[in-house]
């Protein structure tokens, strides 16, 4: 037995032979013609054969064998891209050349198509091929973006142009197909990223987001996107979701604020960031140095710690001499056992969908992206997003599950971008001493009006509700981000100098705050956080923070705010049914159930009481969520820490429910944050606020413990609601005698 027979081939040898013979028949570099690429006699037919192999073998049998062979045969770079680069721009008049180019483009689209298999469908050969193909696709992307002679993407755009020039009514299905091929190819290129868990041995910068954006800019892809998006609805219909995907993969994770900063401000912000990081590092190092040993590591000190009942514990190392707190830590830290943790099932591991990963852009890419985003907002935002909303509402055939999520994420992104731009314009106008009177067109919010209507809110509410019911957290995350951003935009709108805008903002707020289901949902989300990951946690705390703040403000302005609430009338109805007797119960049961449901659904209006609503946020579940958030304190920004600070402040001092916070783990966390080790950096501007809050809280706790020693035990647990009043005041609440 030879070695070759020992190794099981990854691909059926016959398949490999077929594919390789086709690939070699397409063409090759010619020795006669100075090494240029020469097409084979039947190149077009061969290209079609390759396509047939991929469609008929790979896709039909749910395998990746042919694609693997093509990747190993260097088909994309060696043949397809060579053909694309072969002819000059004007050669597309020739129908044969046009056909060959189109076939190449289609194959490129197929090869770069995202390879994914659902976890339940994974077979052995999938496990074999997928990692290789992911790497191969990263290679394709690099070759496409940085081909040395041809502008591949521009070529793709040009191939689609004749079809796009035809008015929509006269377009053949074939023309639509060509447009689709080109757009999907662009989508694939935008989507491919360095595989997360494989060692990519090229330069990652070559296929980074910055490189993608720069190439898109240089090869006029952005122009194409703007053209299609701005005439969405009249000239283009089916293409909206593809465009949505392209935008999503281009923009996800890009920091909007940084994007819209002026160069000077950005440099300043970057310097500030660097300074803060260096300060943090310095504080960390000095923290270590304070406790570092002053002699060599074999000096061998051993310390006894006397404890109650005549017992001692020992700690070794001279570090701990005279540092009681340090000894306590060492005794705790040297324990070997860790409480077993469940694997996070709630966190989605799909990095293609994940928009919480921050992306860094280099300076030119940022500039190019910014000008694209500005043009997009000016020309295409409203048509594209209204059109998409209709498609999603209608549940059109082309809309898939993931598109709603992308839709809402992009709304939040663009709203943020528009607000950032507006602020930038205002700042510039102010710095120019208002030499030019502010243009009222610039001031109006008409550019984002497409998503600020009742239909979008209804869709968003339904989306959030359904993703919450389905436990699809990443979707809910996008929904929350979108809702937060809408609230912020409305807020900005109500502060606008134009009177119409104020009216509209008032109107929108009225509608948002009118539905009690919205209030309940936000409360529900905050209460029910459990292991959904940091991005989700950040989104849900931000949403409740922003929502509560704006609701407070709004209800102060409109003292007689009404909300529509659903009244429950089940109990009364049941009592009625029992009174009627059980004689004719059977046939009326069904009818009655319906009626009961009807009654339950009846809604009433009632006056909104902000104090009562906000007190619902001061429950143990909400506190637990915010504690989980605060546990990340070392990585949180000033704003995020402020959010947590406000929340705890409201709970402890405004609503006088500090009792909820009297729990040892919470106190331990707060103590660690302020007093270290590894605490909050004292240089942060929010540090003072936190220190004051914690100090006040600690004072309250120690006082209370002395007053009521039974708290010592209760502090170990979450409080029982009934006992909280007694613990706080020392006597029972009078109301309880009502029963």
């Amino acid at each position, binding site marked *: 037995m030879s070695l070759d027979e020992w190794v099981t081939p990854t691909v059926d040898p016959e398949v490999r032979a077929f594919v390789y013979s086709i690939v070699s028949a397409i063409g090759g570099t010619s020795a006669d013609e100075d090494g240029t690429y020469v097409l084979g006699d039947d190149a077009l037919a061969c290209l079609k054969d390759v396509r047939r192999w991929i469609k008929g073998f790979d896709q039909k049998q749910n395998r990746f064998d042919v694609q693997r062979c093509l990747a190993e045969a260097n088909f994309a770079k060696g043949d397809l891209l060579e053909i694309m680069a072969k002819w000059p721009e004007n050669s597309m008049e020739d129908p044969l050349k046009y056909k060959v180019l189109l076939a190449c483009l289609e194959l490129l689209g197929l090869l770069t198509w995202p390879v994914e298999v659902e976890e339940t469908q994974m077979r052995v050969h999938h496990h074999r091929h997928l990692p290789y193909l992911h790497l191969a696709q990263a290679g394709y992307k690099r070759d496409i973006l940085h081909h040395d002679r041809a502008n591949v993407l521009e070529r793709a755009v040009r191939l689609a142009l004749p079809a796009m020039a035809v008015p929509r009514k006269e377009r053949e299905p074939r023309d639509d197909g060509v447009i689709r091929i080109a757009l999907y190819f662009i989508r694939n290129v935008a989507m491919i990223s360095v595989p997360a868990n494989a060692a990519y041995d090229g330069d990652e910068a070559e296929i980074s987001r910055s490189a993608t954006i720069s190439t898109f800019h240089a090869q006029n892809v952005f122009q194409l996107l703007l053209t299609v998006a701005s005439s969405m609805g009249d000239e283009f219909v089916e293409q909206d979701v593809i465009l949505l995907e392209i935008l999503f993969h281009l923009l996800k994770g890009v920091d909007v604020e940084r994007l819209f900063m002026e160069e000077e401000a950005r440099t300043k912000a970057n310097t500030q960031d660097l300074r803060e990081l260096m300060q943090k590092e310095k504080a960390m190092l000095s923290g270590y140095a304070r406790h570092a040993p002053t002699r060599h590591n074999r000096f061998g000190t051993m310390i006894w710690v006397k404890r109650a009942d005549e017992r001692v514990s020992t700690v070794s190392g001279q570090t701990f001499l005279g540092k009681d707190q340090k000894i306590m830590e060492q005794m*705790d830290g040297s324990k070997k056992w860790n409480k077993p943790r469940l694997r996070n099932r709630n966190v989605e591991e799909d990095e293609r969908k994940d928009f919480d990963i921050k992306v860094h852009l280099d300076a030119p890419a940022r500039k190019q992206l910014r000008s694209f985003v500005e043009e997009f907002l000016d020309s295409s935002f409203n048509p594209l997003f209204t059109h998409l909303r209709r498609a999603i509402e209608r549940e059109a055939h082309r809309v898939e599950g993931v598109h709603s999520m992308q839709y809402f994420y992009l709304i939040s992104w663009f709203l943020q971008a528009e607000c950032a731009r507006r602020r930038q314009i205002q700042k510039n106008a102010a710095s120019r001493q208002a030499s030019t009177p502010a243009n009222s067109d610039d001031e109006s919010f008409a550019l984002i009006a497409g998503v600020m209507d009742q239909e979008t809110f209804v869709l968003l509410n339904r989306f959030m509700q359904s993703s919450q019911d389905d436990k699809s957290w990443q979707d809910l995350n996008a929904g929350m981000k979108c809702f937060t951003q809408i609230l912020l935009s409305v807020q900005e709108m109500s502060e606008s100098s134009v009177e119409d805008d104020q009216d509209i903002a008032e109107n929108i707020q009225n509608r948002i705050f009118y539905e009690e289901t919205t209030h309940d949902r936000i409360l529900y989300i905050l209460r029910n956080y459990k292991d959904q990951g940091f991005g989700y946690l950040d989104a849900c705390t931000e949403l409740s923070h922003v929502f509560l703040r704006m609701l407070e403000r709004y209800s102060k302005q409109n003292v007689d705010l009404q909300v529509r609430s659903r009244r429950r009338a089940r109990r009364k109805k049941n009592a009625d049914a029992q009174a009627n007797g059980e004689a004719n119960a059977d046939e009326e049961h069904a009818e009655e159930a319906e009626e009961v449901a009807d009654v339950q659904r009846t809604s009433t209006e009632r006056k909104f009481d902000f104090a009562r609503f906000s007190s619902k946020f001061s429950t143990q579940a909400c506190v637990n969520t915010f504690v989980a958030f605060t546990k990340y304190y070392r990585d949180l920004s000033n704003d995020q820490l402020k959010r947590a600070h406000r929340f705890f402040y409201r709970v402890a001092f405004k609503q006088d429910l500090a009792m909820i916070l009297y729990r040892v783990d919470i106190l331990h966390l707060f103590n660690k944050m302020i007093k270290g080790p590894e605490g909050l950096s004292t240089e942060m501007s929010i540090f003072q606020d936190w220190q004051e809050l914690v100090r006040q809280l600690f004072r309250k706790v120690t006082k209370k413990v002395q007053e009521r020693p039974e708290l010592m035990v209760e502090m170990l647990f979450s409080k029982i609601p009934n006992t909280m009043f007694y613990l706080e005041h020392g006597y029972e609440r009078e109301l309880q005698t009502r029963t």
Partner: protein
Amino acid sequence: PATSNAAALGIDEEIKVAKKRQPIAKLDDARLLSAAGIPKLRRISKERLKFKGKGHEFSDMARLLNTYQLWLDDLYPRAKFADGLAIIEKLGHTKRMQMMRKEWIYENRPKPSVEDDTAV
């Protein structure tokens, strides 16, 4: 027939004695309610805990936390402080613990009224 008989009875086979693992001590409500558990904590807090008051919030809190840590180390040396706290917090949701907790809370209530006896 004698040999087959012995085989059927299983006399000839060696009995395998599986050595049982030493069970790992658990931090459960029994342990928490034992003498080293909450009763001890209550005793400690009455006897030893003194606070300095205003101006010493952080040192007071450190002392309080250290008390808990040492108590927990005696009760269940296996777990780190934070882990132990999480376990105990979870235990507090059981029915038995809730009853005991209410009992401790209302123990030295000034005037026990009639209808609240149900809570005890």
